């Protein structure tokens, strides 16, 4: 009896995978259409979608004259609140907008994605990942400037924005209304896919992989056939409790834990580095050397570069447009301020956290181990070289990161579905239920199928988004450069230096707040 249950259970995970894998392969094939580069090396292919993201990053870096590097200092002053009007106390600060966005992006891309990049591309992928992070900072700044500029203030006082609004509104202003509408709808469709893919299935898949491996692998108590489905079900209930049940306390707890976990994760990576202190120079040299002249089998420099760029984009989401949704609720009259603050996001995500993971993996050499699947287990093995219990710490971090990323993406998906189908309870609940179902599918499938699908959908978001960014590039330049000019001429002063008469500057942002628009909030406002 028990054995037949086991067989049935075992086949459940397999069945899910059997149905899902071909769909994933089909979509991956289309999205990652690649140009063969046989003249460089046999079998090297250049996926056009990666070129698309990287070219955008470099274009904006040049067009805005290295804005992300000049913005850095002022961005830090902004998140410290030195330019916040005291009248705005109680509204969403730059710090909060950034923290919300970061907790959505720091996810398994930083832990598992990096491991995949290095396993497939060699240590040199780290170098290209950092470069991709640095140019991604600019794309992110551009997106978030537009996100605030064209955000929507609902009649009841809620504020939200994102690519669907700057695509439809911004392009309309430039006389391309129809194109804008089409792009906005496409963006929303791909966001729904991205939300169930990279924002959900990839997260639950890797959270399960790590939970299974620290509890003893196939022989442990998460080793039975349907373990993936059971784990996914528990996770789905926890996600559903927050997004459907409205049990905010759980979300609030994880929101407070995630920043500490992120710091803790970096400290843990540093511990791995210090335990192997003497090998740091060698590892750095290895990263630089293989970035430009990889060994045979890795498919040449282009192959390494693609892996680095692909994983960086997956991790920091620059160019995808998702972060613009998270950043848009900030209280500011100047869209450019959020553009400044947003450049810190890929910096934290890719240049700091991803690099830490990469160094830990390269230094301990676990990336070359082919016995386990590339992914979170590679990072786990690197952690294990320091202490036996380190993978358990990693497992906690992984599950928390996965959870917070899932909550963030469920919100992005919700915004996309309400844009497509209108604001209604039915749309809201349907989306959230579908989202929870995919948590279970994600943890029941194999990594390859999940990664293929997640990558495809997430990268598709960049198609409509970046077309919009190009068309609106002059708007962004005007906003950012105009703001910096006023800043340089002392028209904008920190609050402490303003004196009694604050300089009145015209607001170019969609106005936030309920002032004037609606004195009485709707009855839907949650009682405290």
């Amino acid at each position: 009896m028990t054995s037949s249950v086991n067989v049935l259970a075992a086949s459940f995970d397999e069945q899910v995978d059997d149905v899902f894998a071909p769909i994933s392969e089909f979509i991956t094939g289309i999205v990652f259409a690649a140009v063969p580069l046989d003249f460089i090396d046999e079998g090297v292919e250049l996926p056009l979608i990666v070129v698309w993201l990287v070219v955008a990053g470099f274009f904006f870096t040049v067009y805005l004259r290295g804005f992300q590097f000049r913005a850095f200092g002022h961005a830090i002053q902004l998140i410290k609140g030195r330019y916040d009007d005291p009248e705005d106390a109680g509204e969403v600060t730059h710090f909060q907008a950034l923290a919300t966005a970061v907790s959505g992006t720091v996810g398994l891309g930083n832990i598992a994605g990096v491991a995949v990049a290095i396993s497939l591309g060699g240590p040199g992928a780290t170098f290209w990942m950092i470069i991709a992070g640095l140019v991604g900072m600019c794309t992110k700044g551009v997106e978030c400037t537009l996100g605030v500029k064209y955000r929507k203030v609902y009649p009841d006082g809620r504020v939200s924005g994102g690519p669907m609004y700057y695509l439809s509104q911004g392009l309309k202003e430039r006389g391309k209304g129809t194109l804008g509408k089409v792009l906005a709808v496409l963006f929303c469709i791909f966001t729904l896919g991205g939300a169930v893919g990279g924002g959900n299935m990839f997260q639950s898949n890797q959270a399960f992989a790590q939970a299974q491996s620290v509890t003893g692998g196939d022989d442990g108590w998460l080793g039975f056939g349907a373990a993936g489905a059971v784990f996914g079900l528990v996770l789905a209930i926890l996600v559903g409790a927050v997004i459907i049940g409205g049990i905010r306390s759980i979300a609030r707890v994880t929101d407070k834990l995630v920043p500490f976990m992120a710091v803790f994760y970096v400290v843990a990576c540093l511990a791995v580095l210090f335990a192997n202190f003497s090998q740091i120079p060698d590892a750095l040299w290895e990263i630089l050397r293989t970035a430009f002249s990889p060994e045979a089998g890795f498919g040449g420099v282009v192959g390494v570069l693609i892996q680095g760029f692909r994983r960086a984009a997956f991790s920091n989401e620059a160019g995808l447009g998702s972060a613009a949704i998270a950043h848009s609720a900030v209280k500011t009259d100047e869209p450019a301020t959020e553009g400044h603050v947003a450049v810190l996001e890929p910096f934290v995500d890719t240049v700091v956290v991803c690099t830490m993971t990469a160094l830990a993996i390269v230094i301990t050499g676990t990336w070359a181990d082919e016995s386990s699947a590339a992914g979170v287990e590679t990072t786990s093995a690197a952690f294990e070289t320091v202490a036996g219990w380190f993978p358990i710490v990693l497992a906690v971090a992984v599950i928390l990161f996965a959870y917070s990323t899932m909550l963030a993406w469920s919100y992005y998906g919700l915004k996309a579905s309400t844009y497509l189908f209108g604001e209604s309870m039915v749309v809201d609940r349907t989306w959230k239920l579908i989202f929870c179902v995919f948590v279970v599918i994600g943890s029941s499938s194999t990594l390859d199928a999940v990664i293929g699908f997640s990558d495809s959908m997430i990268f598709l978001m960049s198609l409509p988004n970046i077309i919009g960014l190009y068309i609106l590039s002059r708007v962004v330049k005007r906003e950012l450069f105009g703001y910096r000019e006023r800043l340089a001429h002392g028209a904008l002063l920190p609050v402490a230096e303003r004196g009694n008469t604050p300089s009145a500057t015209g607001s170019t942002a969609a106005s936030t707040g309920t002032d004037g628009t609606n004195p009485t909030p709707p009855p839907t406002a949650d009682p405290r």
Partner: protein
Amino acid sequence: MSASIIVGLDGSEASGRAADAAAEAARRHGMRLVLACVVPWSPYSFTTAEENERRSIEKEREARSAQERVLDPAITRLTAAGDLEVEGVVRHGHPAETLVALAREHRAVWIIVGRVGQSRVRTLLFGSTPSSLIQLSPVPVLVVP
């Protein structure tokens, strides 16, 4: 603007007694009374995207609730005699820091607050508004039990 006395109100009984003590002092010295209700809020707290979307509405709601539940009854009570100039202010922020900022804006000569009984553990962890006020305030602080 004449000199004033600031009272920190939070709706507790102790803060009601603080308001009474302040009213008496204001009458005796012919000063304005500023009743301040500070909604605890930090610019560095962590929030979800959904909370951010609704934040403006929430802020308005919190401010209105502070006005209606805490300030309005106190103002009605203290102005009943008709011999006092009373003003109510609602702000978001760190309670002690905000009271100090208000004291500067209103040229206050005193800050008067109630002593709210809370457990030793809580006080140890988070401090209390009166004790932080004593550290920060540029003017004398009166704590009413």
